[in-house]
């Protein structure tokens, strides 16, 4: 449904009177199947939004090709526009307008005559449960209500593909869960969904397949479970901050502990994140006693030790050397 190859975009940035070129997207390839929820996971500034804006015909790519719902992005952007919906992160409504007025107008922009547009608006209001506030000013909506209107506007013409830029950023947990429900409902209706997110749990729970993007390049792609399976075994997190002082440990002590544990045969890799060490091992059950022993031999007392299954953050860490969580 979406095929992208070698898509690139750089921006001119002015810094200290010098014009430099910043490569926002440095050649990305991916394919999205029909009826799939496909996620672009990455930190802020990774190139997620730039990619999305290129695919939505808002900015011209510097290079590369894309086909969306059978239309060529570079040769026939007008066709692409007819077949897609796009919901920007910032939304896109006047505060003094109302949901109903905006929905009717949106349907008419896609070519519906007035009476059809009114019917479509009414049906969309029902489907997204906007009834309660559809005739109130947009500026009176809660964050979740406004987000639902944004998405309703994006799909009123039943596009084949819908692009959602960070659909749940800034929403409370309840509204987020609701939004996930709406996205799944759209997928069940046969739409293909391409969304960006910097939430690990969102990519994990909502997306059928994800691409991890960092610094303008795709570093991993697959289903969330496949990606996590690449990180075999368990993860052990050793918190070196003493539980009673709550203070950060000495950098020297961190370094020593990291060195000791990296040297252990059963530790595949060891990453330092703030005051914790993240160890990748085959089995946490057998490794934890050995970790304790190795540390106490050097008279290092960890504040806490826990184990868990690998998460997408571990995948991100393994691919980029950085962590996505706690940002």
């Amino acid at each position, binding site marked *: 449904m979406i095929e992208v190859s070698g898509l690139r975009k750089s921006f001119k940035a002015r810094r200290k009177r010098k014009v430099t070129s910043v490569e926002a997207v440095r050649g990305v390839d991916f394919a999205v199947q029909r009826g799939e929820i496909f996620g672009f996971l990455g930190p802020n500034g990774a190139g997620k939004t730039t990619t999305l804006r290129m695919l939505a*015909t808002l900015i011209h790519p510097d290079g590369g090709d894309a086909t969306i719902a059978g239309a060529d992005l570079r040769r026939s952007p007008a066709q692409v526009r007819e077949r897609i919906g796009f919901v920007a992160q*910032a939304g896109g409504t006047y505060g*003094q307008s109302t949901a109903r*007025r905006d929905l009717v107008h949106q349907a008419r922009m896609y070519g519906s005559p007035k009476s059809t547009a009114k019917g479509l608006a009414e049906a969309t209001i029902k489907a997204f449960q906007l009834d309660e506030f559809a005739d109130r000013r947009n500026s009176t909506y809660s964050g979740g209500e406004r987000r639902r209107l944004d998405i309703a506007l994006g799909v009123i013409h039943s596009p084949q593909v819908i692009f959602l830029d960070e659909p749940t950023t800034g929403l409370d947990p309840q509204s987020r869960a609701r939004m996930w429900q709406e996205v799944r409902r759209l997928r069940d209706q046969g739409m293909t969904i391409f969304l960006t997110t910097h939430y690990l749990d969102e990519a994990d729970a909502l997306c059928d397949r994800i691409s991890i993007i960092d610094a303008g390049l795709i570093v991993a792609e697959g289903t969330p479970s496949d990606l996590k399976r690449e990180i075999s075994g368990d993860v052990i997190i050793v918190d070196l901050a003493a539980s009673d002082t709550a203070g950060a440990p000495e950098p020297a002590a961190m370094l020593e502990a990291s060195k000791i544990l990296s040297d252990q045969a059963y530790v595949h890799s060891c990453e330092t994140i703030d005051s914790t060490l993240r160890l990748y091992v085959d089995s946490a059950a057998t490794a934890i006693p050995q970790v304790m022993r190795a540390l106490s031999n050097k008279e290092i007392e960890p504040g806490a030790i826990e184990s868990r299954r690998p998460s997408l953050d571990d995948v991100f860490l393994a691919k980029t050397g950085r962590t996505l969580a706690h940002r």
Partner: protein
Amino acid sequence: MKLARDTWLTFQYEAGQLVHNPVSVAVSLLQPITYLLFFTPFLKSVMGASSYGDAYRIYVPSLFVAMGLYSGLFAGFALLAAIRQGVITRFRVTPLSRVGLLLGTELMWVVLVGFQAVIVTVVAFIFGMRLPLISLLLALLLLAMMVLIGVSLSYFLALFVPNQSLLGNLINAVATPIGLLAGILIPLSVAPLWLRDVALWNPFAWAANGMRAIFGGHAGAQVVWEGGVILAGLAAMAVVASSRLFTREIS
């Protein structure tokens, strides 16, 4: 055909926002009405007009030019607000003609300023100004072209200086000399000769001269046609230039 439909659609939507928010329209009327009520008495004594009807005949054409110039030029703020709220982006990912989007918005400004001008005329009528309907229509036509020039210029500035406070200063820097050199505050007839020569290059000065002739009962005067031709040419150029701007990337 699609262009005409999309222009009309955008006009309906943008004008609908105004119709549903009459308070904002009323507020936009405050300034011209205030000038009309408080500036004309000054003018009456300074210019030695024999009656209020005569004073309005002198001042209303200036006020029309000022409204065309300032309302047009401040349209850039509304564009920046629409961009900031993501409305323009939402429109631009639909099949809506981007030129139609621009023309519909410009048309909304023309109609809004036209409406203000009609209200001003009605108030002036109450105070004794008399004008044939055909002259009023001609004046409104000149006004519409001024608004098109002002809005296009303002959009041009707004898209190159996407910063609210800087845009405000820039618009004032542009509007003040144009306004002064159109003689809308002090007539150019009292200006030194070199200043009048400079004003020859100001299309709004031609517009002001044409407007005054119309209100003075000389709708067929040469200066009216000269002003009309200059404004029409400039308005056409402004609309073409700003629609090019609109079909480019806007981020």
